[in-house]
């Protein structure tokens, strides 16, 4: 436990539960996320697990280039999550819509809908990049208290 860090912050950083949301991704990022749970990377070492319900989540992990159908639902899901909850954009699509920018079926980029805390670029990002992003997210955990 670092200096000046309360037990609540410590617990938040040591137990990140991730809700995985695909907003029209090509499934590539999603497979890389599953890679992180396999024996080679095993993110459960750091207390990170995937959860099935947004009500249990600390991290909303978004993949894909936000299409028009899913855009309102991202906002809804973000509002359904208990605070503190941070949004991580995974993959170049989620970061900045990649080659789907200005396409007929895409809406605004992800950070126009919800505040994004961490961007993990890559097409797809390597599992190492994903872990590094989640570690950054954990670092921000203590400072995010209020409902954004």
């Amino acid at each position, binding site marked *: 436990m670092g200096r000046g860090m309360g037990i609540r912050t410590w617990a938040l950083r040591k137990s990140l539960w991730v809700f995985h949301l695909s907003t029209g991704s090509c499934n590539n990022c999603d497979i890389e996320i599953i890679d992180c749970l396999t*024996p080679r990377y*095993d993110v459960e070492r750091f207390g990170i697990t995937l959860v099935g319900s947004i009500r*249990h989540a600390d991290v909303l992990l978004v993949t894909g280039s936000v299409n028009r159908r899913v855009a309102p639902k991202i906002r809804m899901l973000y509002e359904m999550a208990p605070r503190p909850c941070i949004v991580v954009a995974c993959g170049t699509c989620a970061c900045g819509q990649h080659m789907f920018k200005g396409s007929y079926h895409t809406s605004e980029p992800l950070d126009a809908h919800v505040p994004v805390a961490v961007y993990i670029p890559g097409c797809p990002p390597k599992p190492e990049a994903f872990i590094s992003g989640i570690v950054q997210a954990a670092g921000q955990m203590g400072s995010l208290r209020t409902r954004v």
Partner: protein
Amino acid sequence: MTTLFIFLVFPGFLFTAFAGMMASWLERKITARLQWRVGPPWYQSFADTVKLLSKETLIPRGAVETVFLAAPLIGFSGVILSSSILGAVNLDPQRGFVGDLIVLLYLLMLPSLSLLIGGAASRNTLAALGVSREMKLMIAYELPFVLAVLTPVVRSGGIITLGGLVIFQQAHGGFLWSPSGALAFIVALLAVHAKLGWAPFDIAEAETEINSGPLIEYSGSLLAVFRLTRMMLLIVAPLFIITIFAGAGFRGWGMAWSVLQYLIVMVALILVKNTNPRVRIDQALRFFWRPVLVLAAAAMALACIGY
């Protein structure tokens, strides 16, 4: 004062909560090792619990508020009471009261019941689905479980107190080593496995199909209470069947022997959990009402004729 200490500190709430967190870590660690992973550090369950307690607790729109808030506490109180009674009796077999065995049977039902009530109050379709599955699962395993638990009572000639059963076994050897006891023990193990909601009987929570079922709308401290209940049940439920089938008590070497038995039972359950895929609810019902019930009835019949 002593009673309060028993309920709140040892062997009740605080001790069982601590032990339960360690048991939950053991389960996750062994699961990870079986999958060639490293697994979480030993303090993982503490971090999870503290984090959930510090998070926001949301009540979904349209939920029955009072019931939604009260449901976790029902199961929690049930598991605290049962751990206190069980621990006190193991420490001193002279304690306890006539019929505490039956009381424990009911108390151990409360965690599942609280899941039913909470899920039903949360106004979510998937939670309702999980509730209906949990209810069917309870109907499936409770009957063989009760038969299996009553087998030692019949075998011992009608001793209906936990303490009495422990004293009887210290004098005559565990029921586990008699034919009827062995059969009933297997049945009780299977029922406890379903009670803990582990694969292949994790039908009610089925993360991958109904997103943790009855718990789907629970967040923050309410979820923490549910999870703590489940962790404490990891201690109480195996300890209950160990007490009535191999009761060594907690005195002297009995303590070490009980802990060893507990670890053996836990590891066996964890191995079953990790090597079996989830069954459907109708398969679970058929399994508990046909082969398992026949086994339980056979154990009861053997106990009646004195084997």
